């Protein structure tokens, strides 16, 4: 038996023994997801048990070095752990933006002090992070951001505004892009800073979307002091840190369907309306399901290419675009297939899934805008993949 196979057997055994049965069921609501941080909330005892057992093994962050609280697993072991968790249907023990996105760049660009200070508590699920990149006047043109950070002794003093801060009202810390040199060319005057949301001068206001209350916030900075040691990757060097982080974001978003966010049973909901809607809608429903099928096959193919070390760029560049457009299109279809019943946010006599359709139809409008709009994705494909002139 090779080392990998032994690891697989041990892992399977451990998971079977330690993952509570209720933590092996599919996600059904937001309450089934545990978000890490100082205000971590467990809705069931099993959630807590599962979280703590995984944390003790360092498996909240299996890939990170043990020195920073991680599991210290190699690539092969990480893959095996993922496969075994999937085979058993284990839920993620926690959801944490910092782990997916900030963690990898801190490992790459952070000082030893920064790693110890920030990775270790993250690995224990004690800190919840939010992202402070977007600004009202800098949508797709991220580098035109204006939030100013002025050096004053050992600190930077930050003034400005961020927008689209997911869960900004629940986060402990923010990683943010700020302008440290207003004279430099726009990408060259930016720094990447870590900022305690409890600092004086930080205020957060939730944003209401067309679908209602949302997890997005506006964050205002009024002379917020941040120690200069909280700059990651060097002053005015923030752009390359951000670019790397956005690569992690794209990767995370494109596999989001598998990540297990709660999703409704579109086919079952749609079927109930087909007889009344007629054959044209049946054709559209089939087309939609086939789109999703082709996308999931493409995710599979990309993984195989990754394993075979083939050039992923032509495939990976389409993932964010396709995934977000398909999700939005799916709810477009359902909303219309439901006819007049798709027009209310709180219909009576609706199934839980039917109830969700109208709101999700509105909510998913943001998918093709946030995190690099579809237009930006098309530019990237045209220029980087197809090599067309800028």
């Amino acid at each position, binding site marked *: 038996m090779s080392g990998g196979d032994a690891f697989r057997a041990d892992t399977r055994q451990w998971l079977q023994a330690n993952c509570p049965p209720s933590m092996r069921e599919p996600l059904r609501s937001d309450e089934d997801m545990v978000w890490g941080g100082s205000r971590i909330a467990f809705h069931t005892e099993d959630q807590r048990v599962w979280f703590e057992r995984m944390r003790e093994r360092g498996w909240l962050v299996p890939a990170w070095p043990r020195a920073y609280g991680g599991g210290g697993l190699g690539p092969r072991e990480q893959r095996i752990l993922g496969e075994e968790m999937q085979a058993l249907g284990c839920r993620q023990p926690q959801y944490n933006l910092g782990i997916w996105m900030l963690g990898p760049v801190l490992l790459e660009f952070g000082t030893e002090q920064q790693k110890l200070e920030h990775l270790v508590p993250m690995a224990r699920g004690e800190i919840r992070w939010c992202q402070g990149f977007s600004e009202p006047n800098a949508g797709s043109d991220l580098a035109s951001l204006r939030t100013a950070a002025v050096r004053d002794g050992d600190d930077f003093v930050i003034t400005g505004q961020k927008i689209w801060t997911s869960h900004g009202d629940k986060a402990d810390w923010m990683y943010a892009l700020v302008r440290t040199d207003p004279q430099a060319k726009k990408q060259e005057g930016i720094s990447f800073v870590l900022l305690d949301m409890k600092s004086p001068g930080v205020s957060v206001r939730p944003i209401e979307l*067309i679908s209602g209350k949302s997890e997005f916030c506006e964050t205002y900075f009024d002379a917020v002091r941040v120690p200069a040691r909280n700059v990651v990757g060097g002053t005015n060097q923030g752009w390359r840190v951000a670019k790397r982080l956005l690569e992690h974001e794209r990767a995370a978003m494109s596999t989001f369907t598998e990540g297990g966010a709660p999703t409704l049973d579109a086919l079952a909901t749609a079927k109930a309306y087909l007889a009344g809607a007629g054959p044209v809608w049946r054709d559209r429903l089939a087309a939609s399901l086939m789109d999703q099928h082709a996308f999931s096959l493409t995710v599979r193919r990309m993984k195989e290419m990754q394993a075979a070390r083939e050039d992923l760029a032509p495939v990976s560049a389409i993932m964010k675009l396709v995934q977000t457009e398909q999700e939005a299109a799916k709810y477009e279809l359902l909303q*219309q297939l439901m*006819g007049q019943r*798709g*027009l209310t946010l709180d219909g009576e006599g609706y199934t839980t899934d039917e109830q969700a359709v109208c709101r999700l139809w509105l909510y998913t*409008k943001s998918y093709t*805008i946030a995190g690099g*709009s579809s*237009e930006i994705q098309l530019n990237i494909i045209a220029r980087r993949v197809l090599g067309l002139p800028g």
Partner: protein
Amino acid sequence: MALLLNAEQRMLQASAREFLAGRSPVAALRALRDRRDTRGYDPQLWQDIAGLGWPAAALPETHGGLGVGFQGLGAVFEQLGRTLAATPLLSTVVLGGGLLTQAGHETQRDLWLPKIASGEALFALALEEAPRHDPAGVTLRAWRDAGHWWLEGDKQFVLDGHVADRLIVVARSSGAAGEEAGLSLFLVDPAAARVQIARTAVVDSRNAAHARFSRVQLGDDALIGAPDAAFAALDVVLDQARACLAAELLGVITEAFERTVAYLKSRVQFGVAIGSFQALQHRVARLHVEIELLRSSVAAALEAADTGQATAQLASLAKARASDLGERALNEAVQMHGGIGVTDELEIGLYLKRARVLQQSFGDGTFHRDRYARLRGF
């Protein structure tokens, strides 16, 4: 007749535009929503509108009408679409007034049409029973027994049904679901015994109602027109309503489009106005093309409502195009506004929601392509 408005209709259009911009901008709809108004319209606004004579616009001149016809009324609906003004104009005047005009007895007309024209009485049409528009699919039963008419069944999506003074209920008095023959119309007081009305909050912040009729007893004077033969009049009036809804959608679409083009000119990214990006230019150019085609179709449908020629075909043409373009143009408007496009703060989302409700009202694109095909003989 002409597709362009005559001088009188143009004056009405201009005055509607000016009045609505001042008296009922989009902020008025938002205020209605935010104060959780359960009526779904502003009675004072409706009184002011009645004072301007809009409810009378398309009624016969003998009953206090203005005689500007559906082309004139359509110009008003387009302006209502531009500011998302919430009024019971469609339900009360086009549907209620229209059915009384088409099928009502002399006494019913004399009683109700003046009240409709003056804004005193609100009407609603209780037609839909299934998730999709299907006028011939009515199953709510009507039968005669012991010298009375009786109604039994449910209606959904009764626009303005919870504020109406009278409902016109489409009922099946003979035949089977799917047949055009066998339908009858009844005038019902929603306050009558065994009538239950429940408001449904709709995504456009307007309202519809669910209505339940549990062995409701009616006198002979409740019947509108001849029994079993309501479909013809219903079809005519629905086409008039479809033409007006298409006009309203044209207003919704045009306003959202103009705001989008203005945003593309003002929003700067990467050092230039985003409207200079050719990919966006071609997308808005295609929307402009569709809007021009829709404008011609709506004008023709309204003209046909006035002349009575090819009314059905043109109403289906206009309503199908308006429904589909409303979907596409508003999705594009939201996407092109980027992040702020999905915030409640921007008004574009309110246009998106209204366009969807109008899309589903009295037949979407699929319904009307099917109908158009039938009318063209295939």
